């Protein structure tokens, strides 16, 4: 039986506090909503929190080995769910992301995050291939690419990025040198640098000298050079040939929820909301941006803006510190775990939370694009909350069983 005293209560209390702050903010966000249904969102979220806590309790009671051995099976089931949602899922705002069971919507892409964390963790835990071997890199990339493709088809660009982050985190954690990570990411830099030919030429010179110094292998080097050329020369060439409406269509395809009212309306309103909160905030239920409907998606994607407006800098700092505590503890746990699978799972879970945390808050502050990624614990959404608590459960479980191999 579990000895509750040995659980990492710091993580659990931080997670619980964040979830309760989330419920409070959802209540505030929808307090003056038109329909009683919207006003009751916080009650539904409370109910979801109970379900999430049950999931958490189940996860910490189960042996970690069970997740280990069933990781690939779970991955397979999740893939079939992702295929299924494309066939029979319900559509909202041009995207097919949910299974609808009456009032409950299940997003299998949330489940897929967990599945990818477990599958990759298992693979990296037992593979005999050296960290930078081509087969190892290629296999894990393909394993990640399958759910990404299915999710891009929904389409949902933001969520599909989460999977790459899991892969990158685990590549690094299982020993891949940052040199490789930098080189793998270099095509993206090439794309940005391609905005001016001189910048791109300079960048390319730096890239070549970097390759020459680090000598990552002939095939890998050629691959890097070719992809960099492709991203830096061909993509801008095609992009410039496209008509404006085609570009817009492309962007809309990548992100359907993108700016429906134009001119970065959502971001502007979110920045006004957070900034006008000042140091002390306007007080619970007193945020004019929130309550006069200026803030879009205020109970889901922009919940942090409600926090910033009503509780100001101190409230935001409190939430950030609670997240910081969770990340800090997760890193410590991952370091001391003796089981490589457990260690990988903690890093993968933390990477999911950290990425969503940063991208979501970055979006509300105006320096990240609008992606539709939820803020863990705080954003309204049942599956998201259950997933978050499952990830926390895995982290706590890994900590509790740190001595197991």
């Amino acid at each position, binding site marked *: 039986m579990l000895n509750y005293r040995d659980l990492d209560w710091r993580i659990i209390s931080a997670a619980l506090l964040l979830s309760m702050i989330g419920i409070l903010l959802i209540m505030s966000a929808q307090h003056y909503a038109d329909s009683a249904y919207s006003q009751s969102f916080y009650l539904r979220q409370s109910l979801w929190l109970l379900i999430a806590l049950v999931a958490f309790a189940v996860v910490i009671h189960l042996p970690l080995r069970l997740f280990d051995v069933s990781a690939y099976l779970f991955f397979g089931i999740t893939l079939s769910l992702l295929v299924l949602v494309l066939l029979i899922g319900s559509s909202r705002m041009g995207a097919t992301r949910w299974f609808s069971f009456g009032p409950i919507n299940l997003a299998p892409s949330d489940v897929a995050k967990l599945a990818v964390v477990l599958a990759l963790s298992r693979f990296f835990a037992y593979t005999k291939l050296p960290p930078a071997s081509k087969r190892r890199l290629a296999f894990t990339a393909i394993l990640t690419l399958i759910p990404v493709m299915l999710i891009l088809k929904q389409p949902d660009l933001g969520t599909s990025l989460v999977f790459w982050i899991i892969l990158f985190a685990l590549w*690094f954690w299982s020993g891949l*040198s940052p040199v490789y990570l930098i080189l793998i990411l270099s095509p993206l830099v090439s794309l940005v640098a391609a905005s001016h030919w001189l910048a791109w030429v300079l960048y390319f010179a730096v890239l070549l000298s970097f390759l020459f110094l680090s000598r990552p292998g002939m095939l890998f080097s050629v691959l890097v050079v070719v992809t960099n050329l492709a991203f830096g020369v061909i993509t801008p060439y095609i992009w410039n040939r496209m008509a404006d409406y085609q570009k817009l269509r492309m962007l809309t395809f990548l992100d359907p929820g993108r700016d429906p009212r134009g001119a970065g309306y959502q971001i502007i309103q979110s920045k006004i909301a*957070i900034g006008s909160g000042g140091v002390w905030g306007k007080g619970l239920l007193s945020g004019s941006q929130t309550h006069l*409907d*200026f803030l879009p998606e205020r109970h889901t994607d922009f919940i942090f803006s409600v926090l910033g407006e009503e509780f100001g800098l101190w409230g935001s700092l409190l939430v950030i510190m609670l997240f*910081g505590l969770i990340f800090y503890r997760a890193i410590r746990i991952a370091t001391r775990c003796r089981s490589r699978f457990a260690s990988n799972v903690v890093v993968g879970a933390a990477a999911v939370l950290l990425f969503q945390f940063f991208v979501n808050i*970055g979006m509300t502050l105006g320096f990240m694009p609008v992606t539709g990624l939820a803020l863990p614990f705080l954003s309204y959404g049942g599956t998201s909350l259950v997933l978050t608590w499952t990830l926390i459960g895995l982290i706590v479980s890994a900590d509790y069983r740190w001595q197991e191999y």
Partner: protein
Amino acid sequence: MPQSTLSLKYRQATVLFIVLGLLLVILGGLVKLQILNYRELAEQSENNRIRVQPLVAGRGVVYDREGRIIIDNRPSFTVSVVASEAVRDTTISNLAALIGLDTSVVQKRLRKNLVNRYQPAPIMRDVPFEIVAVIEEQAGRFPGVSIQMEEVRRYTPGLGSECFTGHVGEVSKEERRREGAVGYRLGSIIGKKGLEKHHDALLRGREGTAYIEVTASGQSRGPYEGKAPTPAVAGADLVLTIDNDLQRECVAALGEYCCGAIVAMDPRSGEILAMTSYPGFDANIFSTVIPESLWQSIMQDTTHPLLNRPISGLYPPASTTKLLTIGAALEEGMISANTALKPCYGGYQFGNRYFRCWLPGGHGSLNAVGAIEQSCDVYLYQVGLKLGIDLLSQYFDKCGFGHVTGVALPGEEDGLNPNSEYYDKRYGKKKWSRGLVLNNAIGQGEILVTPLQLAQFFCGLVNDGIVYRPRLIKSIQFPEGQQVIPSRQTVRKLPFSSGTLELLLEALRLVVEGEHGTARGLKNNLYSLGGKTGTAENPHGDNHSLFVGVAPMERPEIVVCAVVENAGHGSEVAAPIVKRIIDIYMTKKLSLESVADLSHAEGD
């Protein structure tokens, strides 16, 4: 190829470093927005939610001298459509059917008046109450249709007062750009003509401001508590010098003819008692949207209803200014009261031209007073020759002709008072005959005056030569309770000695009461009436009929000038009209006096 596994310590440190870095980036973003940009963003958040809504001030009411309404305001209903709430097809087609317009017309108006999808766009102004009732009762059939109440200017019908009231309308772009145009916004009501224009600042009051909290979709959430509204200040009420009874009589009297103008003034103060331009128009049509067909019919009307005849209608004064000619000659010592010039045998030979007198048989030998009484042209021709063009013109000038009277109304005309300079310019030096003075002496030729100028001149004649500025405002009542009573303003003294004036007054009396007076038909037992007839030759048609009447002659209180276009002899048309107006005035005065006498007697 470096294949060595990195140490756990190194990886842990790297990850911690990345997490710390990301947290610091977020912290930086928060500090930037919530501390550095706080003021700016807080202000934007306030601006976001507050809409400034104008509170329209009630426009001042205009009364006649006895407190009867000339202009007031009535509530009216405007039907609007809020585009964001309208249901495709249902709203527009149901509304179009109800207000009797084509669907396409309603759609066109919606597009034209759309400010944004959340604000009502007016479709039809001044909608009858029955339609409003239908919309209110069957709201379900008209989603997105809203009713606004507005005040609309109402001009009391039948007064023929539009020549001085003017009218209002929506402020134009040019008017808003004009210097000193403060407080007007798109859609503001502004005085366009008449006293509505001249006293716009007094009448309009001051618009207030309400601060409304709105949602992102523009829906009102009620008053904003952070900022108290500035209440609107109603406009000042005006009490005019006008007497509605006289106004109505003017319209009735002119109603039998095509066109004309009447001005009634109190010579003791310059107060305008009545003023009308006939035919007039209904000033109410400008308060709401004028139908195109109505506007076309007004513009194409050959009787020119929009011409403001009393102040901008130009007429030859004809025989009415014979007093001026005689007076000038008396002042200059060229004739005396008893001077008999060459007798009138129906005309006068000057050079190779024969100038007729209006009476073909002639008047025989007359003195100065007799010449006025019988309006003998031949006597006046001779007086004119004695004076010469420039001296006569100087007297016209000193009597106010050729200048605006300065009445507080826009659009007043100067009239025309020709002198040799004018003729030089018009015909060339030495290219005109000295004989033109003969025409000028009898108020014909190029001389043009407005009915108001003529009335003002006669007011001076019967007021010991003192001429006041004609005025319309008896008092201004400010909403705070203050009252301002403008005082009379002397503009000039007529260039006649008291002896001359006495003589001219006697002549005025004889025109009505004399044995040979041209208006002897007006003689009555009730009060003593004086006046001067005029028959203006009109090259475009029948003669204009003029008469300026004065009563009571012992101590004149009212001067009435009537000009009736194309109506014939002054004595036949204008004179009886003037008497009708003066009758009303005198009956009122005498009955008031008898009531006063009665109560006095009872008191004894």
